[in-house]
């Protein structure tokens, strides 16, 4: 029950004084309350927990962190060109 996952805001409407969005998680679309993230707009990613958005994903921070991490992965390739080891799979952890 403690899971919170990121999804993309497809649209947002007022219903009975409450702001409710349709949010896409992979292939699933669910209604999500925007009470705590009133600034979320169409196209934004929000982190959703038990039907409520609890944050708007900070895209700039996410990109910055990930570029740093990506550099770590790439660096290894550059240093390991002489090694006999098979190339890294480049895939995702299963």
């Amino acid at each position, binding site marked *: *029950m*403690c*899971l*919170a*996952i*990121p999804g*993309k805001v497809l649209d947002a409407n007022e219903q009975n004084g409450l702001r409710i969005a349709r949010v896409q*998680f*992979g292939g699933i679309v669910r209604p999500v*309350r925007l*009470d*705590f*993230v*009133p600034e979320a707009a169409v196209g934004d*990613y929000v*982190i959703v*927990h*038990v*039907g*409520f958005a*609890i*944050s708007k*994903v*900070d*895209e700039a*921070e*996410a990109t910055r*962190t*990930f570029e740093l*991490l*990506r550099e*770590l*992965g790439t*660096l*290894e*390739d550059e240093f390991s060109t002489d090694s006999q080891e098979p190339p*890294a*799979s*480049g*895939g*995702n*952890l299963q």
Partner: protein
Amino acid sequence: MKYLDEYRDERVARRLAEEIACVATKHWVLMEICGGQTHTIMRYGLDELLPAKVELVHGPGCPVCVTPLETIDQAVALALRQNVILVSYGDMLRVPGSNSDLLRAKAQGADVRMAYSPIEAVKIAKSNPDRDVVFLAIGFETTAPANAMLAWEAKREGLKNLSLLVSHVLVPPAIRALLTLPENRVQGFIAPGHVCTVMGYQEYEDLVRDFHVPIVVGGFEPIDLLQSVLMLVSQLERGESRVENQYVRSVSHQGNPAAQRILQEVFEVADQKWRGVGAIPSSGLRLRDEYAAYDAERIFNLELLSAEEPGECISSQILRGLKKPTDCPAFASRCTPENPLGAPMVSAEGACAAYYRYRRHSVAG
């Protein structure tokens, strides 16, 4: 999916593990607080990627697991009342109470319903005006604003047949309690990223000041957790203790003010008992007096039951990071997800259930 897949990149994960192995010169014991993080660690075998010097122990951060036995007993007793509809998050249904659980109560004819969001209870209450609808409101700070919204809406709509059975826990007092144990082994903490998304991380700065222990606010994907471990080990090796935020894409220093506002409006801090851990001062939430009309405990005059855990379950030591699930003689034999002796085997985020699902074959022989 965006913001998930890229944090599961195997090459980056292996590189981070190598970096951790380079940085670590001593043995360090780190604890992830949140059950969601424990689940990721076991699912992707992150503990096996790490050098032997870096040991991960699993904290009390599964709200399903730490909900007191007495609360489960109260929920079961309420559910069995003729006129009650008991609504709960799905993982609570199979949590064992003293003699029964909500699923068994349902089999005996109780009206027990599962909800994805607390707000569903409003709809159930409106469509059943002659029945008493009780929502079993459990969780950490992550869930508290959503549960608070339920009470707030019930009051706003003047619903007379909706109440909450509240069992809420707060993370920082639990870390404080762990750090004051004489037998504590934990030298660094991965703080729960979604709790901090709501609350920010000021309270964790107080813990660092008082105990000189590094804390990294971490996310929930493999790369998030490995990066958090690297940040902790780097601090420990340099003799530092600071709060660092790894989960910057969701967590800010001040947290989510709108969520905190509704939490404060509806709840106040109270002493709380944690299953497997015991009572911790000021570590829970209860409904404020203004919401007494929505407090199931007050409306239904519920007995303050006292209950004992099954003798064989060692969850109290597991939840404090003193033992691992595989140290338990009942693990995967007398205690399984189908027949759990204790709560950590029930919830998918419980440490025992995570070990059972991903690691039981390696210990079976």
